[in-house]
C-alpha cells in the first residue's frame, strides 16, 4: 500500500459511478451543459423493455422551459437528438434569464419517448439590467441583523430611479455569446485540434559567446579578475564567467597570498570583432 501517493500522473479515475442520472449546469446566459450516466442496470432494463427497436432508437435530450413567471412558455419542450455514445452535451438556448431542466430518454419507434432521467432545474442569468425597478431600501443595521432564513422585503419608498452605468459591458457579453437560433446544440464534444502553422513560418538562429577565466593559486588567497573579487573553491581553484561583447577586453588576473606578502599578476587582451548583438 505504501508509495501509492508518489507519482501525480499514476492515477486512474472511474469511468462512471454506476448510477443513472443527468446533471445540468449553466455556462452563461445562452449555454447550458448537461452530463449524464446510464448505469448497466438501466441499460439492461431498456434493452429488455424495448427489444428489437432499441437498435434504431435515438438518445434524446428534452429541454423543458420551467420559467414560472411566464405562463406562455412554461412547459415548452425542445428535443435534441445526441450521439448515441455521448455522455455530455452543450445546449444553446435563445432566451436568457429562464429556468430549464432536461429529460434524458430514448426516442424509439413512432417517435415515442422512453424517459430515463430528469436533471436538476437551473436558472440562466439575465443579460442587461433588470426590468424590475421597484427599489427596496433598508437600514444596514436591520439588514445585517437578519438571522438565517428568508428575508422579508418592505415596500419601496418610491424614490426616483436614477441609474449610473459604468460601461456597456453586459451588451458586449450578449453580443459575443452567439445567442442565435432556437434551442439547438451545434456544439457537441469535439476534440480540439490545431492545424500545423506552416504558413508564415519563421526560421531563426541565436548565438552568443562568453568567456571563462579560470585558474588556481594557493588556497586562502585573494583573487580578482579585472578588479572584481572572485570566489575561490577550497582547493584554490577559481572560475569566472564573463559576457563577451564586441571590442577589446583587457583581462587582469591578480592574486595575493593570504598573508598579503606575495602577489602575482597575469594579464592579456581578448578581442571580439564582427556583428554587434550576436544577430
Amino acid at each position, binding site marked *: *500500500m505504501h508509495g501509492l501517493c508518489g507519482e501525480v500522473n499514476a492515477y486512474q479515475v472511474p469511468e462512471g459511478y454506476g448510477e443513472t442520472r443527468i446533471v445540468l449546469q449553466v455556462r452563461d446566459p445562452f449555454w447550458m451543459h448537461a452530463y449524464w450516466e446510464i448505469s448497466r442496470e438501466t441499460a439492461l432494463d431498456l434493452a429488455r423493455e424495448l427489444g428489437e427497436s432499441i437498435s434504431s432508437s435515438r438518445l434524446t435530450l428534452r429541454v423543458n422551459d420551467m420559467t414560472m413567471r411566464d405562463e406562455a412558455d412554461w412547459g415548452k419542450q425542445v428535443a435534441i437528438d445526441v450521439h448515441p455514445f455521448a455522455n455530455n452535451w452543450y445546449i444553446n438556448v435563445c432566451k436568457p434569464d429562464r429556468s430549464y431542466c432536461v429529460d434524458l430518454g430514448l426516442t424509439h419507434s413512432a417517435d415515442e419517448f422512453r424517459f430515463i432521467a430528469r436533471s436538476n432545474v437551473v436558472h440562466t442569468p439575465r443579460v442587461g439590467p433588470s426590468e424590475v425597478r421597484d427599489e427596496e431600501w433598508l437600514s444596514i443595521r436591520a*439588514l445585517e441583523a437578519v438571522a438565517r*432564513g428568508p*428575508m422579508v422585503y418592505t415596500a419601496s419608498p418610491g424614490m426616483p430611479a436614477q441609474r449610473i452605468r459604468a*460601461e456597456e459591458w453586459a451588451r458586449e457579453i450578449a453580443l459575443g455569446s452567439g445567442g442565435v437560433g432556437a434551442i439547438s446544440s451545434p456544439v457537441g464534444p469535439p476534440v480540439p485540434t490545431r492545424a500545423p502553422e506552416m504558413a508564415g513560418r519563421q526560421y531563426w538562429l541565436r548565438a552568443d559567446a562568453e568567456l571563462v577565466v579560470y585558474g588556481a593559486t594557493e588556497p586562502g588567497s585573494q583573487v580578482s579578475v579585472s578588479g572584481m573579487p572572485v570566489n575561490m573553491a577550497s582547493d584554490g581553484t577559481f572560475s569566472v*564567467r564573463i559576457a563577451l561583447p564586441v571590442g577589446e577586453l583587457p583581462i587582469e588576473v591578480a592574486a595575493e597570498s593570504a598573508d598579503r606578502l606575495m602577489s602575482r599578476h597575469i594579464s592579456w587582451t581578448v578581442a571580439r570583432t564582427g556583428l554587434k548583438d550576436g544577430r
Partner: protein
Amino acid sequence: MSEPKGYLAIVLHAHLPYVRHARGEAYLEEKWYYEALTETYIPLYTMLARLAAEGVPYRLTVSLSPTLMSMCRDELLQERFSEFLDGLCRLAELETSRTRWQPQFCETAKMYLERFQHVRSVYNETLNRDIIGGFARLAREGRIELITTAATHGYLPLMEVCPSAARAQIIAAANYYRSVFGTTPKGMWLPECGYYPGVDAYLREAGVRYFFTDAHGIENASPRPRYGVYAPIYCPSGVAAFGRDMESSKQVWSAHEGYPGDFDYREFYRDIAYDLDWDYIRPFMGGCPARTHTGIKYYRVTGRTEHKQPYVREWAVNKAATHAGNFVFNRERQIEHLASVMDTKPIVVAPYDAELLGHWWFEGPEFLEFVIRKIAYDQNIIKLITPVDYLDERARAQVSVPSMSSWGYMGYSEVWLADCNHWIYPHLHMMARRMSELAHDYAMPQPDLIRRALNQAARELMLAQSSDWAFIMKAGTCVDYAVGRTKSHISRFNRLYNDIRSSDVDHEWVADLESIDNIFPDMDYMIYSASPMASAILDT
C-alpha cells in the same frame, strides 16, 4: 484633509493553488509560489510597511487565499524558499560579474542582486519567515483589511448543484482564517468573482459581511440597483455585494491599452533562463530538466518587436510615477462626475490579482506606492477606503439580488466549463455528494482512524475543487500537472470513500496522505453535514 467627494477601494487578491510537494524535489509548480513571494508578496509587504512607518495614510484590502496562507505557514516550504533565495542571490552575484563589460545590463544585474538580498533579509530577519504575520501586523495597525477567499479557491457557480460543497468551501475558509488571525473575516473574495444567487447565504452563515462581483453581477441585479456599481447592494441574506469598476480595472489590467504594456516597463518573457548557456543556468532550475524563469530579465517591453532593448530602471520608475498620476487624475474626474449625479458618496472598487503587481507587471508595486502617496498628499477629492469602513459609514442600502457572473472571459463560466475540462464535474459533484452522505452517516463520534480518514476525504475533495486546475487545462500550459493533480485527488478520495464504507481503512496509507495533502490540519468533515440550504439537488 477636507471631506472627500467619494472613495476608492483598492483590493489585492493573492492566491496560489496548493502546490506543496513534500517528496518531490523538482516540482516546477512549487516555483510559482517562490517567484510570487520574491516578486510580489514580499515587495508588497515591504512597500506597505514602509509607508506605514513613514506615517503615510492609506487603507487597502488584501485577500489572502487559505491555500496560499497554508503554504506560507508551512515549515518545509519556508525552508525551501530560503534555499531558493540563496540560489537566486548566487545567480545574481554571478550575473553582476558576467555582465561587467555589458554596461547596458550590468546596472540591472546589480539591481537584481540588491533586490534579492533585500527580499532575503526581509524574509529571514524582519519577518522571521512569517509573511502572514507581517500582513497581520499591518492589519492590526489599521493599514489594511485582511480578507480571504473560498478554502481551496473552488469556483462556486459550478457547485450550485451540490450546495453543501459550496457551503463547505466558505465555512472551511472562515474557520481557517479564524485559526490564523483569531477573528472572523469581514469580507470574502469569491474565487474568480464567481457568484450565483444564493451562495451569499453561506457567507452570511460564516459571519462574512461583504463580497465582490464583477460589474455585470451588480449592473444586472434585480431590482435594478440605482447607483450601479458605485454603491454596494445588500442581498436579501443580509450580505453586501460590491461591484468591480471596469474603467479603473481596464487601465491596469489590459496588456495593450493598460499601463503594464508600456514600452519602458520590464519585459516579462525575456528571461536569462532562455538566453544563456544551459550548463550555467541549470543549477538554478531547482532540479527541473527544462529551462524555466529565473526572474532575472534585462529587457524592456520596447514595442511589438522581437528586438528588445535593454531595461533602464530609471525610465521605468519614472513611467510608473506618470501612470500613477494618470490613474489618480482619472479617478478624481470619475468620482467628481459620480458625486455630481449621486445623492450619496460613490465608491469605486478596483480589484486586482496581487500577482499582477511585481510578478507580471514588475513595476506594479512602485505604481501602487505612487498611487497611495498621491492620494494621500496631492488631492482631496478621493480617499482610500475598505468596504467595511464604507458600510459602517452608511445608514441605508438598497436590497437586490446580484446576477450570476464571474470575472472570467466573457463574464460567466466558460473558462471553467469547456471541452477540455468539463470531464472533472461528474467526479467533483459525485465526490461532494458522497462527502455529504458520509457526514450524515458518520455524524456520531468516530474512532480516531475513521475520523482521520473522513477528514482526509474532505481535504482531497477540496484540493480537487481548486479553480486553478480547470483554468490551467483551459489555458493550455502545464496541463499535465493540472490533470494529474485533479486525478490524484479524485482517486484518493474514492479510495478513502470505499475504505470507510467497507470499514477497511489502512492506517499507514491515511497517515501518508495526511503528510502529503496536509492542508487544513483542523479540518472537520462535519462541515459537509446538512445545512438549512443544503437540500442537495443530486439527492433525488
